[in-house]
């Protein structure tokens, strides 16, 4: 599937938010997310990235401005994903199943079709051999794959990921980004990835939004970091 990147699926207008009066963490953000985008949201810690995601997802309410979510089936892999209760009594299968609970109506339980999708999602991230293991007993990288599988089982149109690779070793990170690229390019799933690791994600994503209270850059990732004489530097940012 070739993403067309023209159809808006999230429209953000004049969005502002402050935790304490007078010091906004986000100010007048205008941003559209298009179908098929692989958007990286970068910026310093405390720059408002996580707040922006929470606003988009409706986990907190905007104080001014609007977020218009034009799709219904949304999956979220939060920072908590690698920071969850490691003693929680749930297997990989249990966790991935959660992705199906709201999919075809609440309070219905899982049918054969659901179970097939769960097995496929686990297969897609290469975790089939571990499906009966408790998530708490897995490595950070395997846990991360499990959470991606849960998002996949939901068959979402868009997946939001907040710092998904924190606490995950380099090899697992590489595999993880490979899985994400595949989801975006082969399955056409729109991805929004928050990271403070600018170097890594500019190589992975296709669009970049840089946030530091204001939206300081938005455009193709190749324009964000320009290579010149082998030295990387960040493109001169004009205020949006």
């Amino acid at each position: 599937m070739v993403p067309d990147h023209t159809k808006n699926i999230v429209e953000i207008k004049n969005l502002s938010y402050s935790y304490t009066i007078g010091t906004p963490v986000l100010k007048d953000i205008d941003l559209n997310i298009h179908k098929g985008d692989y958007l990286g949201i970068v910026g310093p810690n405390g720059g408002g990235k996580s707040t922006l995601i929470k606003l988009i997802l409706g986990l907190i309410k905007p104080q001014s401005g609007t977020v218009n979510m034009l799709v219904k089936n949304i999956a979220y892999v939060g920072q908590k994903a690698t920071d969850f209760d490691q003693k929680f009594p749930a297997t990989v299968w249990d966790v991935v199943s959660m992705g199906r609970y709201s999919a075809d109506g609440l309070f219905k339980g899982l049918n054969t079709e659901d179970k097939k999708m769960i097995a496929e999602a686990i297969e897609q991230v290469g975790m089939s051999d571990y499906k009966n293991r408790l998530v708490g007993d897995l490595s950070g990288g395997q846990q991360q794959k499990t959470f991606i599988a849960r998002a996949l089982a939901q068959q979402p149109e868009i997946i939001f990921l907040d710092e998904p690779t924190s606490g995950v070793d380099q090899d697992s990170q590489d595999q993880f980004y490979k899985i994400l690229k595949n989801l975006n390019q082969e399955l056409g799933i729109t991805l929004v990835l928050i990271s403070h690791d600018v170097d890594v994600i500019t190589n992975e994503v296709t669009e970049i939004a840089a946030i530091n209270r204001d939206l300081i850059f938005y455009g193709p990732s190749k324009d964000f970091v320009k290579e010149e004489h082998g030295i990387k530097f960040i493109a001169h940012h004009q205020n949006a």
Partner: protein
Amino acid sequence: MLNLFQYDFVVKGLIAGLVIAIVAPTIGVFLVLRRYSLIADTLSHVSLAGIALGLLLGISPLLTAIGATTISSVLIDKLRLSRKVYGESALALFLSGSLALAVVLIGLSHGFNTSLFNYLFGSIATVTTSDIYTVSFLGIIVLAILAVIYNELLFITFDEDSARVSGIPVNAINTVFIILAAITISLAIPIVGILLISALLVIPTVAALQLKKSFFPTILIAQAISIFSVVAGIVVSFYFNLAPGGTIVLISLLIFVIVEILLS
């Protein structure tokens, strides 16, 4: 040797005890994993105010206890979500407030009588036939509703934000759950008493969690531990003339210790 089944109150106690033994740890697993065990203690103190009101007005203390805990559980949850006070402070407000109300109500009904003492520490002798019907009926209702919301509640317990984003009505399910917890706590009063209720919700769960099984097996193991503790507690307390509530809790603690030793 005395045959305990020839005593009507023992049979009634066992029936009510079995229902509670199944329902309490099922609610308990979710409470413990949500770091919400303390709400059981708070609601049990609230139930004392409900019981005192029931005794004062001459209506079924079990019903007034259910009313008081249900209303309080919803208010505690609202207060916690409003973020005006810390979660634990909301619990502390209700715990001390309801205890104060209970003391005043007890004073109005001219002091501490034996039946109130029974409610504090549990006494299967206080279980009436109508209590059995109430406990069984509400116990089944609690389990049935829990079965309906089970998957969604599991998702919320594991990862509330992701559950919300995926379209699960988190607030509504949380409210339903907390009401189920409140009802369960009230139902457990005649068996283990107000002061020991939280033990019945928490100890079998904590023991079962040590075995590191997946979610549903953990619930089944917690129920098994709880059933064994309640039945053994009632039988042992009958033959050795001990307080049943305390005996039940001590047996469940003993199981927890044995599990810990076997696993280490």
